[in-house]
């Protein structure tokens, strides 16, 4: 769309800007302020980049960061293909489509701590369906003792919780493909795979970028679900960044280090998401030039 140059548009943006500034800039400045000071009671000393050096050299935090990256990439590697597959299988219209749409959306509407609760109840070895089932099958399943079990359960929980998002995104992408494309493919006797590869996948790329962006963001901030399910354990095998930070800031009241940690944490997310954002922008430009809306 050709936009009109008009700086009065700022007036339309202003209310939003003030509100978001109140809830974003002021707190962020507080964090920056803490990160360069050592605060003991009422007195504070300027310490420069001391906390940042500490945080970057803290092996515990480095491990949490590595765990976080492994987790985020694992769930992306599972959820994206699975979501595409589910979207391809969902019926296109009729009451069945509406019903399945609502059922698939269900996990997204569950409060995040309740997601943890659901999986806690589901996987408990004394009362949970999956827990008891696995025991009956002869596998000594235990998420409070076994690192591997806890890890797999958390990944499974996230797949349960968020694959629907990817599936719905792809579903809406598929809905937007004109029937004529499929007809042309039929005439050319294209195989099922060729239809997917050359018609569906290119149309899905737009929504997939949004999906990967949202999934990466949210998985990188994951807190309530593992906190309720495993409490970060056994040991610290499922302690991710948000939980490490929350323990530091609220539990131990280490204002300076946790502020420095916050900033580093935020910057990592920002850097990765900026790449996605640029990708989205470029996509929009291609779209504008090829087909005027």
């Amino acid at each position, binding site marked *: 769309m050709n936009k009109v*140059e008009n700086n009065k548009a700022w007036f339309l943006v202003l209310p939003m800007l003030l509100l978001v500034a109140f809830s974003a800039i002021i707190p962020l400045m507080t964090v920056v302020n803490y990160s360069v000071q050592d605060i003991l009671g009422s007195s504070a000393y300027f310490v420069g980049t001391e906390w940042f050096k500490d945080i970057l050299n803290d092996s515990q935090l480095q491990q949490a960061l590595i765990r976080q990256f492994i987790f985020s990439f694992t769930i992306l590697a599972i959820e994206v293909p699975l979501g595409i597959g589910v979207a391809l299988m969902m019926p296109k219209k009729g009451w069945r489509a509406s019903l399945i749409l609502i059922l698939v*959306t269900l996990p997204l*509407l569950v*409060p995040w701590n309740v997601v943890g609760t*659901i999986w806690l109840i589901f996987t408990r070895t004394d009362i949970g369906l999956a827990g008891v089932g696995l025991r009956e099958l002869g596998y000594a399943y235990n998420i409070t003792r076994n690192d591997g079990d806890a890890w797999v359960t958390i990944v499974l929980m996230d797949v349960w919780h968020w694959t629907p998002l990817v599936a719905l995104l792809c579903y*809406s992408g598929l809905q937007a493909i004109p029937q004529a494309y499929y007809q042309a493919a039929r005439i050319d006797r294209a195989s099922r795979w060729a239809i997917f590869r050359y018609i569906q996948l290119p149309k899905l790329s737009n929504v997939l970028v949004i999906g990967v962006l949202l999934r990466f963001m949210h998985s990188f901030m994951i*807190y309530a679900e593992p906190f309720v399910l495993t409490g970060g354990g056994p040991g610290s095998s499922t302690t991710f960044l948000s939980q490490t930070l929350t323990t530091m800031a609220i539990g131990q009241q280490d204002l300076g280090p946790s502020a420095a940690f916050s900033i580093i944490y935020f910057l990592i997310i920002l850097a990765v998401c900026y790449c996605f*954002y640029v990708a989205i922008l470029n996509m929009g430009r291609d779209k504008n030039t090829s087909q005027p809306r």
Partner: protein
Amino acid sequence: MTTSNHYSTSQTTTFVKRKLRNNPSAQRWRQRFFLGLFLIFLLLPIYWLVSMSFKTNTEILSGFSLFPKSLTFDSYIEILTDPSWYMGYVNSLLYVVTNMLISILVALPAAYAFSRYRFIGDKHLFFWLLTNLMAPPAVFLLPYFQLYYSVGLFDTHIAVALAHCLFNIPLAVWILEGFMSGVPKEVDETAYIDGYSFPRFFVRVFIPMIRSGIGVTLFFLFMFSWVELLLARTLTATDAQPIGAIMTRTRGASGIDWSLLAAAGTLTILPGVMVVYFVRNYIAKGFALGRT
């Protein structure tokens, strides 16, 4: 777009459809089978939660059963009659609705500006907005606590509603901008030629045109405010405590009250199910942020 193609080639469409129906029926059944498996995977944990809420605690702990043997509503009755329980739901709903109202009101004009005008710093502003969507709530925990405490808003619904604006306003702007860009600019121009002023055009003509987009946006605002707990729990103590925080009370000295916990969990899913029903036809497009 689809409809016009459909019209011109309707005969070929039916032909292709017939071929599709006759030919790979095995494939269709395979698809249904896998989709069914996925749906079972999605619904099984939820089923387990719901079924547990209808069991008594002795039944839960004494033996393993797939279905509740003696259907009991005790846990639901306890939650719905005890104010310290059901006020949790009221509190949650109050701050969620407040947040939805604030977010949509400020996001509508902002999204219009982004979709129609170029102005100094628009791209940077938009990215800055999105960065707030990316901000981990854990980062803002401590500053929020201190900020709202110092302005005297701690433990009020408005505090949580404002805090949730951090990610909900950017989200609303993003989704609405997508839907608004789908409305041809000629609509605006025609309205101005017809003598509409901007506010009148916006309220009378434009908003009705994107009402499905607004519906979907409201649904998303509801969803993200409803599921968030970390900020809501930190900014409240007693008067505005969300249900998610109250649920931890089921951990008593004598262990966890499983039945009560399951009932409380089930009740947190219900509002979402009711809301999703209304937007079911637009939800797919909404999830693509209005950009398909």
